């Protein structure tokens, strides 16, 4: 069928009036894509339907916009509450049970957790440290005493030589 006769067939009118069958809707969408002439005619008809509606328009009473805005904000607020309540159920089971058992708290701690096995290691290191320290002091004193003895011996030897 020629595109002009399709345009004149009333197909576009049933489409814009919202009473087209599914088959007709698909036909319109296809024709719109393939024929620029059809697309322009359809756009023109849609625009004219809007102009016709403007001709039949009735100005809403003052305060209507505020009522609509209030209702919308109320819906948004309700949706936010519903989302907050529904959020735990949307997560996987593992995360779900974790959130149920623990409450997340943001805080900085100056302590750290250490495995209990480290306790004996720390004690051993402490004792060994003490032993090394005692040994170091002992050998230091021994060394000092030995030096003094050497010094005295040297002086004694010098006196004998003289």
């Amino acid at each position, binding site marked *: 069928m020629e595109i002009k006769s399709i345009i*004149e*067939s*009333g197909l576009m*009118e*049933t489409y*814009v*009036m*919202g*009473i087209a069958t599914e088959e007709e*809707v698909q036909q319109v*969408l296809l024709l*719109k894509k393939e024929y620029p002439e059809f697309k322009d005619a359809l756009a*023109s*008809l*849609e*625009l*004219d*339907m*809007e*102009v*016709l*509606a*403007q*001709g*039949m*328009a*009735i*100005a*809403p*009473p003052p305060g*209507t*916009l505020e*009522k*609509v*805005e209030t*209702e*919308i904000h109320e*819906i*948004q607020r309700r949706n936010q509450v519903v989302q907050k309540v529904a959020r735990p159920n949307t997560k996987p089971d593992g995360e779900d049970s974790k959130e149920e058992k623990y409450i997340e708290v943001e805080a900085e701690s100056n302590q750290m957790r250490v495995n209990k096995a480290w306790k004996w290691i720390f004690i051993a290191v402490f004792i060994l440290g003490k032993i090394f320290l005692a040994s170091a002091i002992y050998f230091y004193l021994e060394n000092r005493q030995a030096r003094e003895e050497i010094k005295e011996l040297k002086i004694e030897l010098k006196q004998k030589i003289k």
Partner: protein
Amino acid sequence: MPKAVLNIPPAEPKDIRWFYDKYAAMLLGYINGIVQDHRKSEDHLISILTSFTAEFGMQERSQLSIWLELRQYAQSRLALITQESHSLSPAPVNSNGNLDLLDDLQKQIFCAVYYHGKSISHLATTLGSEEDEIRNQLKLSIDKMRRSRGN
């Protein structure tokens, strides 16, 4: 009914205002054509604008213009209310001239389709005519109104 869609993000106040300024009066005129009661029409206007604005962000894109989507949305919302009272009722009282251009049959067909979403086959059965005849009368009525506006 095709799903409703808008090209604006949902529920931003400036968009609602823009949307309201552009379509509220047209929608009220349309609703009043269906409900035939000014007070009820205003109530429906608020609920339809609210739900449409709240919903369009979640719905898929369609090929229709915003006004046509909005009109069909309103029609489907009001369908349950008007289903019982409507029986190919006469044209709305305050049609402000456009519908007066049509003859009785055209007016009856146009109003049944435009305001109540009656299908061609339904009208053909109800009026005892061929579907092609109904389709033709619908096109003629739209053409008449378009021509009266210089299109």
